[in-house]
Structures are given as structure tokens and as C-alpha cells.
């Protein structure tokens, strides 16, 4: 069964169509890049998968279920913005994740935080932008989820942080889980992906493995993407 499946999914905001009749299947065990220019519908798709938005038509299913309380148990979501209350410290956040998510692996999170010298007493408010992004990612990746939905995890961070984030994603890879990474910074994530979905103006127009693209076009996914989106 597909871990994430959209069929004829459409979402409109007023007069603008953010997603237009999207059908897509993502199987377990893959790291998938959801690639497209800004405003192409990537964030909308991930919000729909989390039940943060309701589709106008069509459906989106996680492990066969429409987004609901049950799917939230198996989906680990990193939004594209700072979303943790800034007055909370790391320990309170670990408590929160442990309280609500039965698949949260606290020792693993602690190990990763320790490596970065982020103390449990540190408040979100006191963290630099990069540290905050890393802390958020650690919390999200420390769950043993079936589906990770990461919205722009490397947007606007320095190269060292970017490497750390990609490394963390590979380190936590699990053959039964899938990871969807939305980004417009393709060159940075390309080696980590084994599948890519190109999305533009709310439509999916390509879903292939990275190796297929390289084999067929003789170009990297990044080069291919630039070519496709030149106009």
C-alpha cells in the first residue's frame, strides 16, 4: 500500500488554484524530493497531507486513511517555519513530543542534541536561527514515523547546517518509512534523493527516480530542472 497517495487532488484559495488535479503515489522506503519553484504548491500539498487544509475535490490518503488523528500518529511533519512556542525549553519540548507521540525516541533525540551542544535548559527564544532549525529537525526525525514530511528543511540555512540536516535525514533513514523533502534548492539535496516529483503551477508533471532522469537526459536533476523551468 502506498504510504502517501493523492488522487485528483485540487485545492483552491479564493480564485487561485494551488493544486490542480494532482495524482501521485509514494511507496514506503524512499526519500522523495518534492521539487518546484516558489509558489508551485509544495507547501499546500504537505499541509493537505497533514490535514491542515481540506481539499476542494479529490482526496489524499496516508497509508489508506484520510488525514485524521490516526494518520498523525505515523506522520512526522516539519513545517516551513518556526512553529515551536519560543518560551519553551528543550526539556519541555522533549516532554511534549514524548507525551503525544508514542513513537518518539527520546534517547536518540538527546544524543543528537548533545552532539550539537544544545542543552536541555536552552529556550527556543535563546537559539540562533540555525540552531532552532536543527532542534526542530531533531525533534521531528527522532520519531520512528512511517512518513516524514519535511517542508523546506534546508531553506535559508548556512552550508554547515545544511550538511548536518541532510546527514540527519540519511542517518535516520528506515527502509519501512518514506521521507518527502520539499525544496527549491535541488543541487543540495539531489544526492540524498532516490525519487523526485516536479511540481509547477499546482500540477505534477514528472515523477521519476533520480537515476532515471540522469540516465535518460544525461543531466543532473538540478540541470534538468533548470532547463524545464527556464521559460
Amino acid at each position, binding site marked *: 500500500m502506498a504510504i502517501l497517495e493523492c488522487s485528483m487532488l485540487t485545492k483552491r484559495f479564493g480564485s487561485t488554484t494551488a493544486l490542480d488535479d494532482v495524482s501521485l503515489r509514494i511507496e514506503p522506503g524512499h526519500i522523495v524530493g518534492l521539487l518546484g519553484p516558489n509558489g508551485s504548491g509544495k507547501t499546500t500539498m504537505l499541509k493537505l497531507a497533514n490535514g491542515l487544509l481540506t481539499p476542494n475535490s479529490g482526496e489524499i490518503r496516508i497509508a489508506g486513511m484520510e488525514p485524521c*488523528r490516526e494518520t498523525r500518529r505515523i506522520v512526522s511533519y516539519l513545517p516551513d517555519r518556526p*512553529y515551536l512556542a519560543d518560551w519553551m525549553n528543550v526539556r519541555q519540548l522533549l516532554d511534549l513530543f514524548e507525551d503525544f*507521540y508514542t513513537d518518539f525516541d527520546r534517547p536518540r533525540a538527546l544524543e543528537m542534541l548533545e552532539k550539537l551542544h544544545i542543552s536541555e535548559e536552552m529556550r527556543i527564544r535563546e537559539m540562533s536561527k540555525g540552531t532552532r532549525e536543527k532542534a526542530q529537525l531533531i525533534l521531528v526525525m527522532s520519531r520512528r514515523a512511517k512518513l516524514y514530511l519535511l517542508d523546506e528543511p534546508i531553506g535559508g540555512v548556512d552550508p554547515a547546517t545544511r550538511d548536518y540536516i541532510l546527514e540527519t535525514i540519511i542517518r535516520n533513514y528506515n527502509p519501512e518509512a518514506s521521507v518527502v523533502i520539499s525544496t527549491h534548492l535541488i543541487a543540495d539535496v539531489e544526492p540524498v534523493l532516490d525519487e523526485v516529483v516536479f511540481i509547477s503551477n499546482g500540477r505534477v508533471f514528472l515523477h521519476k527516480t533520480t537515476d532515471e532522469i540522469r540516465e535518460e537526459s544525461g543531466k543532473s536533476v538540478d540541470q534538468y530542472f533548470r532547463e524545464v523551468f527556464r521559460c
Partner: protein
Amino acid sequence: MLGKLLKQEFRATGRIMLPVLGALIVLAFLASLSGSGLINGVTDVPVLRFLMGMIEFLFGIGVVAAGVVTVVIMISRFYRNLLQDEGYLMFTLPVSVHELVWSKLIVALVWFLVTGIVIFLVMGLLGLVLSRTNLVDLMAEFSSDWEEIWSQIVSEGLLASFRKFFLAGAVCTLLGTVCTCLHFYAAMAMGHMFNKHKILLSIVFFVLISIAFSLMTTSLNMAGFSQISENEFLYAESMALLFNTLSRMLWWLTLSELVQAAVLYLATVLCLKRGLNLA
């Protein structure tokens, strides 16, 4: 899961409410001391007398501020925690929308209750101290007064009516508070379904709900109160009958509040479930 949400909610609100209430209590003690000092003429130094007066004034501000903070916390927890960026976390927890709304509502009610009790107590304390400096005498007098009133109530057979009246009053106040919270929640949930002008639209919805409900409750109350004849009120044969009539009026109010609360609750949950549109 509701228990866990409540724990989070108390943690988030307690860090503000506890210091505020603590400060109010400290201020009440200071105000009592300086107040009795002023009355007893402890000092003639103008500066000190001015400062002592200022403490009284500050206490007055503090009481109002504590009330305002409680209301602001009620509104801002819903707004910031559910409708702003923190909503990305809250709405992806494995909890239902019902649980989210109840956790906000219950915690807001608890703080309204606690703040109410604290304000009542500190005002009482200050009143006692300022009216009589000798607390022991006062207590003795108060208890003898109370005994007198009590015996009167019992002798006139008012006890049952009183009990009914207070029960109706308590339920009515509680539901009124629930309605106030849900009024804000529903208005914000509606306003935030839209892509733009979310706050402005929230205010518009708040006003619209107010108008709709005032029309509804007026007709409902008219229906209820029309059963109560003017004579029952103005020419009540006894205190007991008067209180019974008042209780009936309160129950009618409670009923209309119950209808309002139900409508507002359903509207809030529906908007958050189907119309959530986080920025």
C-alpha cells in the same frame, strides 16, 4: 489525550497567571498595611503618606489588571497557539479538534474562577482592614451578624429558595463565562478561515455574533419572562416567593446561554476542522 493537552495548557498559562496573581496578593498585603497605616496616622511625613496612597492606587490598578490579563490570556492562547504558527504543531498532534477546544476552554474557565476568587479574597481582606483595624473584634461582630441573618433566613423558610437562587446564579455565571470564551473562539476561528484580513474579519464576526445572539436571546427571554407576571415581582408576598421568581428568570437565562454555547462550540469546531487555513 485531553489530560496531556490540559497539562500543556496549564504550563503555558501558569507561567503568566501565577506571577500575576502572586503579585496581586503581595500588593493586597502592602495595600492593607499602608491603608491601615494611613488611617491610624502612623506617619505625618508627606512623602511617605503619598507613597502609601500610591500603593492603594496601584492595588486598584492591579485588581483591574489581573482581570484584564485573564481575558487576554484566554484570547491569546486560542489565537497564538491554534491560529498562528504554533497551530502547525497543535493540529498535527494525534488529538481531536474537540479536545483542543475543550483544553483551551477548561483552562480559561479555571483561571477565570481562580482570578475571581483571588480578587474576591484580596478585596475582602483590604475591606476588612480598612473598615476596622481590630480584626478580632470585627470577626466576632461579623459572626454574630451572620448568626442573626442566618436565623432569620431559617425562620422565614427562605433557605430552600436561597439555595435555588444561588445554584441558578452559579450555573448562569459559569455558562456565561463559557459563552464569552466561545464567542471569542468562534469569531477568531471564522475570521481565520479567510486568506486575508483575518483579524479584521474576526472582529466583524464577533460583532455579527453579538447582534445575532442579542436578537435571539431577547426573543427567548421575552418568551420566558412573559410567563412571569409583573405582579409576581412587584407585589411578591414574601421574600421566598421573590427569590423563587428570580431563580426562574436565571434558569431562563441559563437556557439561552446553553443554546448559545452549543451553537458557538459547534461553529468553532466546524471552522477549525473544515476551514483551517493557517498562514
